[in-house]
Protein backbone atom coordinates (compact mmCIF):
# COMPACT_ATOMS: atom_id res chain seq x y z
CA UNK A 1 0.00 0.00 0.00
CA UNK A 2 1.53 3.33 -0.99
CA UNK A 3 0.81 6.34 1.14
CA UNK A 4 0.63 9.34 -1.12
CA UNK A 5 1.60 12.65 0.45
CA UNK A 6 -0.10 14.72 -2.15
CA UNK A 7 -3.79 14.14 -2.87
CA UNK A 8 -3.42 15.23 -6.47
CA UNK A 9 -0.71 12.73 -7.25
CA UNK A 10 -3.11 9.80 -6.79
CA UNK A 11 -3.54 7.54 -9.74
CA UNK A 12 -6.72 8.66 -11.39
CA UNK A 13 -7.60 5.11 -12.34
CA UNK A 14 -7.46 4.02 -8.74
CA UNK A 15 -10.20 4.34 -6.18
CA UNK A 16 -8.07 6.84 -4.27
CA UNK A 17 -8.28 4.50 -1.32
CA UNK A 18 -5.16 2.38 -1.08
CA UNK A 19 -5.80 -0.91 0.66
CA UNK A 20 -9.10 -1.09 -1.15
CA UNK A 21 -9.43 -2.42 -4.68
CA UNK A 22 -9.15 -0.01 -7.60
CA UNK A 23 -12.26 0.66 -9.55
CA UNK A 24 -12.44 1.71 -13.15
CA UNK A 25 -15.80 3.39 -13.25
CA UNK A 26 -18.99 3.77 -11.34
CA UNK A 27 -20.61 0.50 -12.35
CA UNK A 28 -21.45 -1.97 -9.63
CA UNK A 29 -19.97 -4.80 -11.67
CA UNK A 30 -17.98 -7.31 -9.72
CA UNK A 31 -16.73 -8.77 -12.97
CA UNK A 32 -15.15 -5.44 -13.96
CA UNK A 33 -13.66 -5.14 -10.52
CA UNK A 34 -11.97 -8.52 -10.87
CA UNK A 35 -10.77 -7.73 -14.36
CA UNK A 36 -9.05 -4.59 -13.08
CA UNK A 37 -7.65 -5.96 -9.86
CA UNK A 38 -7.36 -9.74 -10.08
CA UNK A 39 -7.52 -10.82 -13.73
CA UNK A 40 -5.84 -14.08 -12.83
CA UNK A 41 -9.06 -15.17 -11.10
CA UNK A 42 -10.88 -15.03 -14.41
CA UNK A 43 -10.63 -17.52 -17.22
CA UNK A 44 -7.22 -18.79 -17.98
CA UNK A 45 -6.03 -19.19 -21.52
CA UNK A 46 -4.70 -22.45 -22.89
CA UNK A 47 -2.88 -23.26 -26.09
CA UNK A 48 -3.68 -26.90 -26.58
CA UNK A 49 -7.16 -28.01 -27.44
CA UNK A 50 -6.79 -31.75 -27.20
CA UNK A 51 -7.67 -31.92 -23.55
CA UNK A 52 -10.10 -34.37 -22.06
CA UNK A 53 -12.41 -32.12 -20.15
CA UNK A 54 -15.58 -33.27 -18.42
CA UNK A 55 -18.67 -32.53 -20.44
CA UNK A 56 -21.84 -34.15 -21.66
CA UNK A 57 -25.12 -33.21 -20.13
CA UNK A 58 -28.77 -32.43 -20.31
CA UNK A 59 -30.14 -29.38 -18.58
CA UNK A 60 -33.55 -27.91 -19.11
CA UNK A 61 -35.99 -25.25 -18.02
CA UNK A 62 -39.72 -25.14 -18.53
CA UNK A 63 -42.40 -22.70 -17.57
CA UNK A 64 -45.40 -23.68 -15.50
CA UNK A 65 -48.42 -21.77 -14.22
CA UNK A 66 -46.70 -20.00 -11.34
CA UNK A 67 -43.06 -19.98 -12.40
CA UNK A 68 -40.31 -22.06 -13.97
CA UNK A 69 -38.76 -25.44 -13.35
CA UNK A 70 -35.05 -25.78 -13.93
CA UNK A 71 -33.39 -29.19 -13.89
CA UNK A 72 -30.24 -31.04 -14.85
CA UNK A 73 -28.79 -34.52 -14.79
CA UNK A 74 -25.86 -35.51 -12.55
CA UNK A 75 -23.30 -37.01 -14.93
CA UNK A 76 -19.98 -35.55 -16.03
CA UNK A 77 -18.03 -37.43 -18.68
CA UNK A 78 -14.44 -37.30 -19.82
CA UNK A 79 -14.40 -38.79 -23.26
CA UNK A 80 -16.02 -42.18 -22.77
CA UNK A 81 -15.46 -42.31 -19.02
CA UNK A 82 -17.70 -41.07 -16.29
CA UNK A 83 -15.85 -38.35 -14.46
CA UNK A 84 -18.48 -37.58 -11.83
CA UNK A 85 -21.74 -39.28 -10.88
CA UNK A 86 -23.33 -36.58 -8.81
CA UNK A 87 -22.25 -33.26 -10.22
CA UNK A 88 -24.61 -30.36 -9.62
CA UNK A 89 -25.59 -28.46 -12.72
CA UNK A 90 -28.43 -26.37 -11.37
CA UNK A 91 -27.54 -23.43 -9.18
CA UNK A 92 -29.31 -20.64 -7.47
CA UNK A 93 -28.16 -17.41 -9.09
CA UNK A 94 -29.97 -15.28 -6.54
CA UNK A 95 -33.18 -15.66 -4.57
CA UNK A 96 -35.42 -15.41 -7.65
CA UNK A 97 -33.35 -16.92 -10.43
CA UNK A 98 -31.34 -19.97 -11.28
CA UNK A 99 -28.80 -21.08 -13.81
CA UNK A 100 -28.20 -24.55 -15.26
CA UNK A 101 -24.91 -25.21 -16.99
CA UNK A 102 -23.90 -27.34 -19.92
CA UNK A 103 -20.41 -27.74 -21.24
CA UNK A 104 -16.97 -27.92 -19.73
CA UNK A 105 -17.48 -28.40 -16.01
CA UNK A 106 -14.54 -26.39 -14.66
CA UNK A 107 -15.15 -23.12 -16.47
CA UNK A 108 -18.90 -23.59 -16.07
CA UNK A 109 -18.72 -23.86 -12.29
CA UNK A 110 -16.41 -20.86 -12.12
CA UNK A 111 -18.82 -18.92 -14.25
CA UNK A 112 -21.67 -19.79 -11.91
CA UNK A 113 -19.67 -18.66 -8.88
CA UNK A 114 -18.71 -15.44 -10.62
CA UNK A 115 -22.28 -14.86 -11.70
CA UNK A 116 -23.63 -15.38 -8.18
CA UNK A 117 -21.08 -12.96 -6.77
CA UNK A 118 -21.81 -10.48 -9.57
CA UNK A 119 -25.52 -10.41 -8.74
CA UNK A 120 -25.00 -10.15 -5.00
CA UNK A 121 -22.33 -7.49 -5.42
CA UNK A 122 -24.61 -5.34 -7.53
CA UNK A 123 -27.37 -5.68 -4.97
CA UNK A 124 -25.14 -4.65 -2.08
CA UNK A 125 -23.51 -1.72 -3.84
CA UNK A 126 -26.63 -0.33 -5.49
CA UNK A 127 -29.08 -1.17 -2.72
CA UNK A 128 -31.49 -2.80 -5.16
CA UNK A 129 -31.65 -5.92 -7.29
CA UNK A 130 -31.12 -6.06 -11.02
CA UNK A 131 -34.17 -6.75 -13.13
CA UNK A 132 -34.42 -10.29 -14.48
CA UNK A 133 -33.39 -9.09 -17.90
CA UNK A 134 -30.46 -7.24 -16.39
CA UNK A 135 -29.30 -10.45 -14.77
CA UNK A 136 -29.68 -12.30 -18.06
CA UNK A 137 -27.53 -9.67 -19.75
CA UNK A 138 -24.83 -9.90 -17.12
CA UNK A 139 -24.61 -13.62 -17.72
CA UNK A 140 -24.28 -12.93 -21.45
CA UNK A 141 -21.24 -10.76 -20.68
CA UNK A 142 -19.59 -13.59 -18.80
CA UNK A 143 -20.21 -16.02 -21.64
CA UNK A 144 -18.82 -13.55 -24.14
CA UNK A 145 -15.71 -13.28 -22.03
CA UNK A 146 -15.30 -17.03 -22.23
CA UNK A 147 -15.31 -16.98 -26.00
CA UNK A 148 -11.59 -17.60 -26.44
CA UNK A 149 -11.79 -20.67 -24.28
CA UNK A 150 -14.93 -21.78 -26.05
CA UNK A 151 -13.08 -21.67 -29.36
CA UNK A 152 -10.54 -24.01 -27.83
CA UNK A 153 -13.18 -26.46 -26.80
CA UNK A 154 -14.09 -25.34 -23.30
CA UNK A 155 -17.62 -24.32 -24.11
CA UNK A 156 -19.97 -23.10 -21.43
CA UNK A 157 -23.59 -22.69 -22.40
CA UNK A 158 -26.07 -22.06 -19.62
CA UNK A 159 -29.80 -21.75 -19.34
CA UNK A 160 -30.95 -18.90 -17.17
CA UNK A 161 -34.43 -18.88 -15.67
CA UNK A 162 -36.17 -16.85 -13.05
CA UNK A 163 -39.33 -15.26 -11.79
CA UNK A 164 -39.98 -11.79 -13.14
CA UNK A 165 -41.87 -9.82 -10.50
CA UNK A 166 -42.64 -7.04 -12.89
CA UNK A 167 -44.36 -9.35 -15.35
CA UNK A 168 -45.56 -11.82 -12.75
CA UNK A 169 -44.38 -14.92 -14.58
CA UNK A 170 -41.42 -17.20 -15.07
CA UNK A 171 -39.00 -16.45 -17.90
CA UNK A 172 -36.34 -18.55 -19.62
CA UNK A 173 -33.21 -17.35 -21.44
CA UNK A 174 -30.86 -19.37 -23.58
CA UNK A 175 -27.42 -18.43 -24.90
CA UNK A 176 -24.99 -19.23 -27.64
CA UNK A 177 -21.19 -19.37 -27.46
CA UNK A 178 -20.76 -15.75 -28.37
CA UNK A 179 -22.93 -14.57 -25.50
CA UNK A 180 -25.99 -14.02 -27.66
CA UNK A 181 -29.08 -14.09 -25.47
CA UNK A 182 -32.46 -15.38 -26.57
CA UNK A 183 -35.64 -15.64 -24.61
CA UNK A 184 -37.68 -18.82 -24.82
CA UNK A 185 -41.33 -18.47 -24.02
CA UNK A 186 -42.05 -22.01 -22.87
CA UNK A 187 -39.09 -24.32 -22.46
CA UNK A 188 -35.54 -25.06 -23.48
CA UNK A 189 -33.01 -27.82 -23.05
CA UNK A 190 -29.27 -27.71 -23.57
CA UNK A 191 -26.38 -30.14 -23.74
CA UNK A 192 -25.65 -33.35 -25.60
CA UNK A 193 -29.08 -34.64 -24.64
CA UNK A 194 -30.77 -31.30 -25.19
CA UNK A 195 -32.44 -32.09 -28.45
CA UNK A 196 -33.91 -35.32 -27.09
CA UNK A 197 -35.19 -33.58 -24.00
CA UNK A 198 -36.74 -30.82 -26.09
CA UNK A 199 -38.67 -33.33 -28.22
CA UNK A 200 -40.06 -34.92 -25.11
CA UNK A 201 -41.08 -31.64 -23.58
CA UNK A 202 -42.64 -30.54 -26.87
CA UNK A 203 -45.01 -33.49 -26.63
CA UNK A 204 -45.97 -32.88 -23.05
CA UNK A 205 -45.86 -29.14 -22.55
CA UNK A 206 -48.96 -27.03 -22.42
CA UNK A 207 -49.76 -23.67 -20.89
CA UNK A 208 -50.99 -23.92 -17.34
CA UNK A 209 -49.01 -26.95 -16.19
CA UNK A 210 -49.07 -27.27 -12.42
CA UNK A 211 -45.85 -27.61 -10.48
CA UNK A 212 -46.16 -31.36 -9.93
CA UNK A 213 -46.95 -31.96 -13.61
CA UNK A 214 -44.08 -29.73 -14.67
CA UNK A 215 -41.64 -31.65 -12.51
CA UNK A 216 -42.92 -34.87 -14.00
CA UNK A 217 -42.36 -33.55 -17.51
CA UNK A 218 -38.87 -32.41 -16.52
CA UNK A 219 -37.93 -35.76 -15.03
CA UNK A 220 -39.45 -37.57 -18.02
CA UNK A 221 -37.41 -35.44 -20.39
CA UNK A 222 -34.22 -36.16 -18.46
CA UNK A 223 -35.01 -39.84 -18.40
CA UNK A 224 -35.54 -39.83 -22.15
CA UNK A 225 -32.30 -37.94 -22.71
CA UNK A 226 -30.39 -40.38 -20.50
CA UNK A 227 -31.89 -43.23 -22.44
CA UNK A 228 -30.52 -41.92 -25.74
CA UNK A 229 -27.42 -39.93 -24.84
CA UNK A 230 -24.35 -41.46 -23.24
CA UNK A 231 -23.36 -38.12 -21.82
CA UNK A 232 -26.53 -37.80 -19.76
CA UNK A 233 -27.02 -39.73 -16.56
CA UNK A 234 -30.33 -41.28 -15.65
CA UNK A 235 -31.52 -41.85 -12.08
CA UNK A 236 -29.06 -43.97 -10.15
CA UNK A 237 -31.36 -46.03 -7.97
CA UNK A 238 -28.52 -48.00 -6.42
CA UNK A 239 -26.83 -44.89 -5.09
CA UNK A 240 -29.95 -42.77 -4.74
CA UNK A 241 -28.69 -40.08 -7.12
CA UNK A 242 -31.43 -38.21 -8.92
CA UNK A 243 -31.42 -35.21 -11.21
CA UNK A 244 -31.35 -31.81 -9.60
CA UNK A 245 -34.67 -30.04 -9.93
CA UNK A 246 -35.61 -26.61 -8.69
CA UNK A 247 -38.76 -24.50 -8.91
CA UNK A 248 -38.69 -20.71 -9.08
CA UNK A 249 -41.87 -18.82 -8.36
CA UNK A 250 -42.92 -15.56 -6.73
CA UNK A 251 -41.63 -16.84 -3.40
CA UNK A 252 -38.22 -17.55 -4.82
CA UNK A 253 -35.83 -20.31 -5.80
CA UNK A 254 -36.68 -23.60 -4.15
CA UNK A 255 -34.77 -26.85 -4.56
CA UNK A 256 -37.13 -29.78 -4.96
CA UNK A 257 -36.27 -32.41 -2.32
CA UNK A 258 -34.76 -35.62 -3.61
CA UNK A 259 -37.62 -37.82 -2.43
CA UNK A 260 -40.08 -35.75 -4.43
CA UNK A 261 -37.93 -36.08 -7.55
CA UNK A 262 -37.69 -39.79 -6.84
CA UNK A 263 -41.48 -40.02 -6.67
CA UNK A 264 -41.84 -38.30 -10.02
CA UNK A 265 -39.26 -40.65 -11.49
CA UNK A 266 -41.11 -43.63 -10.12
CA UNK A 267 -44.20 -42.39 -11.94
CA UNK A 268 -42.24 -41.91 -15.14
CA UNK A 269 -40.61 -45.34 -14.84
CA UNK A 270 -43.93 -46.93 -13.94
CA UNK A 271 -45.48 -45.52 -17.07
CA UNK A 272 -42.47 -46.67 -19.09
CA UNK A 273 -42.69 -50.22 -17.82
CA UNK A 274 -46.39 -50.29 -18.32
CA UNK A 275 -46.12 -49.05 -21.86
CA UNK A 276 -43.73 -51.90 -22.63
CA UNK A 277 -45.96 -54.55 -21.09
CA UNK A 278 -49.43 -53.61 -22.28
CA UNK A 279 -48.75 -55.35 -25.61
CA UNK A 280 -48.31 -58.70 -23.78
CA UNK A 281 -51.11 -58.59 -21.21
CA UNK A 282 -54.91 -58.85 -21.18
CA UNK A 283 -56.95 -55.73 -21.80
CA UNK A 284 -58.60 -56.06 -18.36
CA UNK A 285 -55.30 -56.07 -16.50
CA UNK A 286 -53.98 -53.27 -18.69
CA UNK A 287 -57.05 -51.19 -17.89
CA UNK A 288 -56.62 -51.76 -14.15
CA UNK A 289 -52.96 -50.77 -14.27
CA UNK A 290 -53.60 -47.67 -16.33
CA UNK A 291 -56.18 -46.57 -13.79
CA UNK A 292 -53.76 -47.09 -10.90
CA UNK A 293 -51.03 -44.88 -12.32
CA UNK A 294 -53.41 -41.99 -12.94
CA UNK A 295 -55.19 -41.40 -16.20
CA UNK A 296 -54.96 -37.62 -16.22
CA UNK A 297 -51.41 -37.53 -17.55
CA UNK A 298 -50.89 -37.59 -21.26
CA UNK A 299 -48.08 -39.63 -22.66
CA UNK A 300 -47.31 -39.81 -26.35
CA UNK A 301 -46.55 -43.52 -26.19
CA UNK A 302 -49.88 -44.64 -24.76
CA UNK A 303 -51.72 -43.35 -27.75
CA UNK A 304 -49.74 -45.78 -29.89
CA UNK A 305 -50.43 -48.83 -27.78
CA UNK A 306 -52.48 -51.67 -29.11
CA UNK A 307 -55.88 -51.77 -27.51
CA UNK A 308 -56.96 -55.14 -28.96
CA UNK A 309 -55.39 -58.38 -29.97
CA UNK A 310 -53.49 -58.91 -26.72
CA UNK A 311 -52.01 -62.28 -26.06
CA UNK A 312 -50.27 -63.89 -23.15
CA UNK A 313 -51.00 -63.99 -19.45
CA UNK A 314 -52.01 -60.93 -17.51
CA UNK A 315 -48.77 -59.95 -15.87
CA UNK A 316 -49.07 -57.47 -13.11
CA UNK A 317 -46.16 -55.60 -11.66
Amino acid sequence: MTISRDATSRNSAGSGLPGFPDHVDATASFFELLRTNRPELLSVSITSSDLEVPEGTTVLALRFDSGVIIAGDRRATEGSFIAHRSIEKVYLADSYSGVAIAGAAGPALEMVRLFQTELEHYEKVQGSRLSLEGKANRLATLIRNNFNLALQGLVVVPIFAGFDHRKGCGRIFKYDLTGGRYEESDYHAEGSGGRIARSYIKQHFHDGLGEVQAIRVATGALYEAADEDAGTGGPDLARGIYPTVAAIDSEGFRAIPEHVVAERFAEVLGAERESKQVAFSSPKAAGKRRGATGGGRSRGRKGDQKQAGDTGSGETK
Partner: protein
Amino acid sequence: MTLPFYVSPEQITKDKADFARKGIARGRSLVAVEFRDGILIVAENPSGSLYKISELYDRIAFAAVGRYNEFETLRVAGVRLADMTGFANSREDVSARALANVYAQQLGTIFTTELKPFEVELLLCEVGDTADDNEMYHIYYDGTLEDEAGFAVMGGQAELVEAHLEGQYEVNLHMDKAFKLALRALEVADSDRELTADSLEVALLDRNGGRRKFRRFDAQDIEELL
Protein backbone atom coordinates in the same frame (compact mmCIF):
# COMPACT_ATOMS: atom_id res chain seq x y z
CA MET B 1 -3.99 38.26 8.96
CA THR B 2 -0.75 36.66 7.89
CA LEU B 3 -0.63 32.88 7.71
CA PRO B 4 1.75 31.41 10.30
CA PHE B 5 5.14 30.45 8.94
CA TYR B 6 5.20 27.24 10.94
CA VAL B 7 2.39 25.26 12.52
CA SER B 8 3.21 22.47 14.93
CA PRO B 9 2.03 18.97 14.10
CA GLU B 10 0.09 18.95 17.36
CA GLN B 11 -1.80 22.02 16.29
CA ILE B 12 -2.62 20.61 12.88
CA THR B 13 -3.78 17.32 14.35
CA LYS B 14 -5.82 19.01 17.04
CA ASP B 15 -7.50 21.27 14.52
CA LYS B 16 -8.35 18.36 12.27
CA ALA B 17 -9.63 16.29 15.18
CA ASP B 18 -11.82 19.13 16.45
CA PHE B 19 -13.16 19.67 12.96
CA ALA B 20 -14.03 16.00 12.53
CA ARG B 21 -15.55 15.63 15.98
CA LYS B 22 -17.74 18.69 15.50
CA GLY B 23 -18.93 17.43 12.16
CA ILE B 24 -19.87 14.06 13.59
CA ALA B 25 -21.55 15.57 16.66
CA ARG B 26 -23.73 17.75 14.42
CA GLY B 27 -25.38 14.65 13.01
CA ARG B 28 -27.68 12.09 14.57
CA SER B 29 -26.88 9.09 16.71
CA LEU B 30 -26.71 5.41 15.91
CA VAL B 31 -26.86 2.50 18.33
CA ALA B 32 -25.87 -1.16 17.93
CA VAL B 33 -27.03 -3.62 20.56
CA GLU B 34 -26.17 -7.30 20.95
CA PHE B 35 -29.31 -9.26 21.73
CA ARG B 36 -30.37 -12.89 22.00
CA ASP B 37 -30.50 -13.66 18.28
CA GLY B 38 -27.71 -11.43 17.02
CA ILE B 39 -27.01 -7.73 16.69
CA LEU B 40 -29.64 -5.01 16.29
CA ILE B 41 -28.67 -1.64 14.82
CA VAL B 42 -30.91 1.40 15.13
CA ALA B 43 -30.16 4.82 13.68
CA GLU B 44 -32.01 8.09 13.70
CA ASN B 45 -32.38 8.73 9.97
CA PRO B 46 -35.04 10.94 8.46
CA SER B 47 -34.28 9.65 4.98
CA GLY B 48 -36.06 6.53 3.77
CA SER B 49 -33.55 5.71 1.06
CA LEU B 50 -30.12 7.06 2.02
CA TYR B 51 -29.00 4.37 4.37
CA LYS B 52 -26.58 4.54 7.25
CA ILE B 53 -26.72 0.81 7.90
CA SER B 54 -25.93 -1.64 5.11
CA GLU B 55 -24.98 -5.20 4.38
CA LEU B 56 -21.28 -5.69 3.82
CA TYR B 57 -21.10 -9.48 3.71
CA ASP B 58 -22.88 -12.61 4.88
CA ARG B 59 -22.40 -11.95 8.58
CA ILE B 60 -21.13 -8.39 8.48
CA ALA B 61 -22.99 -5.10 8.65
CA PHE B 62 -21.61 -1.64 8.00
CA ALA B 63 -22.98 1.30 9.96
CA ALA B 64 -21.78 4.88 9.80
CA VAL B 65 -22.47 8.41 10.95
CA GLY B 66 -21.22 11.69 9.58
CA ARG B 67 -20.93 12.93 6.04
CA TYR B 68 -22.99 10.74 3.71
CA ASN B 69 -20.82 10.95 0.58
CA GLU B 70 -17.73 10.15 2.59
CA PHE B 71 -19.05 7.09 4.31
CA GLU B 72 -20.76 5.91 1.13
CA THR B 73 -17.37 5.84 -0.58
CA LEU B 74 -16.00 3.79 2.28
CA ARG B 75 -18.99 1.48 2.27
CA VAL B 76 -18.73 0.67 -1.43
CA ALA B 77 -14.98 0.17 -1.15
CA GLY B 78 -15.62 -2.25 1.71
CA VAL B 79 -18.21 -4.24 -0.26
CA ARG B 80 -15.74 -4.54 -3.13
CA LEU B 81 -12.95 -5.71 -0.88
CA ALA B 82 -15.19 -8.18 0.93
CA ASP B 83 -16.59 -9.69 -2.28
CA MET B 84 -13.15 -10.00 -3.81
CA THR B 85 -11.70 -11.66 -0.73
CA GLY B 86 -14.67 -14.02 -0.54
CA PHE B 87 -14.43 -14.89 -4.20
CA ALA B 88 -10.68 -15.40 -4.29
CA ASN B 89 -10.72 -17.52 -1.12
CA SER B 90 -14.05 -18.57 0.30
CA ARG B 91 -16.99 -16.86 1.95
CA GLU B 92 -15.93 -17.94 5.44
CA ASP B 93 -12.61 -16.15 4.98
CA VAL B 94 -14.12 -12.69 5.06
CA SER B 95 -13.92 -11.25 8.57
CA ALA B 96 -15.01 -7.96 10.08
CA ARG B 97 -11.64 -7.73 11.81
CA ALA B 98 -9.69 -7.72 8.57
CA LEU B 99 -12.02 -5.16 7.03
CA ALA B 100 -11.89 -3.00 10.15
CA ASN B 101 -8.12 -2.98 9.94
CA VAL B 102 -8.21 -1.80 6.35
CA TYR B 103 -10.72 0.89 7.24
CA ALA B 104 -8.59 2.02 10.16
CA GLN B 105 -5.52 2.20 7.92
CA GLN B 106 -7.47 4.12 5.34
CA LEU B 107 -9.03 6.63 7.71
CA GLY B 108 -5.70 7.13 9.42
CA THR B 109 -4.06 7.95 6.09
CA ILE B 110 -6.81 10.32 5.12
CA PHE B 111 -6.64 12.05 8.49
CA THR B 112 -2.91 12.64 8.17
CA THR B 113 -2.48 13.40 4.52
CA GLU B 114 -5.68 15.05 3.39
CA LEU B 115 -6.42 18.72 3.92
CA LYS B 116 -9.70 17.78 5.50
CA PRO B 117 -10.30 14.58 7.47
CA PHE B 118 -13.33 12.44 6.75
CA GLU B 119 -16.08 13.44 9.14
CA VAL B 120 -17.22 9.88 9.65
CA GLU B 121 -17.32 7.21 12.29
CA LEU B 122 -17.79 3.59 11.27
CA LEU B 123 -19.04 0.48 12.98
CA LEU B 124 -18.49 -2.99 11.58
CA CYS B 125 -20.62 -5.69 13.23
CA GLU B 126 -20.16 -9.39 12.69
CA VAL B 127 -22.66 -11.86 14.11
CA GLY B 128 -21.25 -15.14 15.39
CA ASP B 129 -22.81 -18.55 15.88
CA THR B 130 -22.93 -17.79 19.57
CA ALA B 131 -23.14 -14.52 21.45
CA ASP B 132 -19.48 -14.84 22.42
CA ASP B 133 -18.49 -14.89 18.75
CA ASN B 134 -20.16 -11.56 18.00
CA GLU B 135 -17.75 -8.80 17.07
CA MET B 136 -18.17 -5.05 16.82
CA TYR B 137 -15.41 -2.76 15.58
CA HIS B 138 -15.63 0.95 16.03
CA ILE B 139 -13.43 3.01 13.72
CA TYR B 140 -12.95 6.71 14.37
CA TYR B 141 -12.23 9.56 11.99
CA ASP B 142 -8.52 9.34 12.68
CA GLY B 143 -8.20 5.61 12.25
CA THR B 144 -8.48 4.66 15.90
CA LEU B 145 -9.88 1.16 16.10
CA GLU B 146 -11.82 -0.11 19.09
CA ASP B 147 -13.34 -3.43 19.89
CA GLU B 148 -16.84 -3.02 21.38
CA ALA B 149 -18.95 -5.44 23.40
CA GLY B 150 -22.61 -5.45 24.35
CA PHE B 151 -23.50 -2.18 22.68
CA ALA B 152 -21.90 0.63 20.68
CA VAL B 153 -22.91 4.23 20.08
CA MET B 154 -21.82 6.71 17.43
CA GLY B 155 -22.66 10.21 16.33
CA GLY B 156 -24.74 13.05 17.69
CA GLN B 157 -24.78 13.21 21.50
CA ALA B 158 -22.98 9.89 21.76
CA GLU B 159 -21.97 10.31 25.41
CA LEU B 160 -25.55 10.85 26.55
CA VAL B 161 -26.81 7.86 24.62
CA GLU B 162 -24.01 5.70 25.91
CA ALA B 163 -24.64 6.74 29.49
CA HIS B 164 -28.29 5.72 29.16
CA LEU B 165 -27.38 2.34 27.69
CA GLU B 166 -24.73 1.73 30.32
CA GLY B 167 -27.38 1.73 33.01
CA GLN B 168 -30.04 -0.24 31.12
CA TYR B 169 -28.26 -2.84 28.99
CA GLU B 170 -28.64 -6.55 29.71
CA VAL B 171 -27.33 -9.55 27.80
CA ASN B 172 -29.65 -11.93 25.95
CA LEU B 173 -32.49 -9.49 25.46
CA HIS B 174 -35.38 -10.33 23.17
CA MET B 175 -35.48 -8.29 20.02
CA ASP B 176 -38.40 -6.05 21.01
CA LYS B 177 -36.77 -5.30 24.37
CA ALA B 178 -33.47 -4.56 22.66
CA PHE B 179 -35.26 -2.29 20.22
CA LYS B 180 -37.10 -0.44 22.97
CA LEU B 181 -33.82 0.01 24.80
CA ALA B 182 -32.07 1.41 21.75
CA LEU B 183 -35.02 3.66 20.93
CA ARG B 184 -35.20 5.13 24.42
CA ALA B 185 -31.47 5.77 24.43
CA LEU B 186 -31.75 7.65 21.14
CA GLU B 187 -34.74 9.65 22.38
CA VAL B 188 -32.99 10.57 25.60
CA ALA B 189 -30.15 12.17 23.68
CA ASP B 190 -32.49 14.18 21.49
CA SER B 191 -34.10 16.07 24.36
CA ASP B 192 -36.63 13.28 24.90
CA ARG B 193 -38.25 13.75 21.52
CA GLU B 194 -40.38 10.81 20.45
CA LEU B 195 -39.04 9.06 17.40
CA THR B 196 -41.48 7.68 14.84
CA ALA B 197 -41.08 5.02 12.18
CA ASP B 198 -40.22 7.49 9.44
CA SER B 199 -37.29 8.95 11.36
CA LEU B 200 -35.73 5.59 12.13
CA GLU B 201 -33.57 3.17 10.23
CA VAL B 202 -33.42 -0.34 11.68
CA ALA B 203 -31.49 -3.41 10.60
CA LEU B 204 -30.23 -6.54 12.20
CA LEU B 205 -27.82 -9.41 11.82
CA ASP B 206 -29.81 -12.54 12.63
CA ARG B 207 -27.72 -15.47 13.77
CA ASN B 208 -30.39 -17.85 12.47
CA GLY B 209 -30.89 -16.07 9.20
CA GLY B 210 -29.65 -18.37 6.41
CA ARG B 211 -26.47 -17.50 4.56
CA ARG B 212 -27.03 -13.75 4.41
CA LYS B 213 -27.80 -12.75 7.94
CA PHE B 214 -28.40 -9.06 7.33
CA ARG B 215 -32.00 -7.95 7.31
CA ARG B 216 -33.29 -4.46 6.84
CA PHE B 217 -36.57 -3.48 8.49
CA ASP B 218 -38.99 -1.69 6.20
CA ALA B 219 -41.42 0.99 7.39
CA GLN B 220 -44.09 -1.58 8.21
CA ASP B 221 -41.72 -3.72 10.28
CA ILE B 222 -40.61 -0.67 12.24
CA GLU B 223 -44.24 0.27 12.88
CA GLU B 224 -44.80 -3.20 14.30
CA LEU B 225 -41.80 -2.88 16.56
CA LEU B 226 -42.94 0.44 17.95
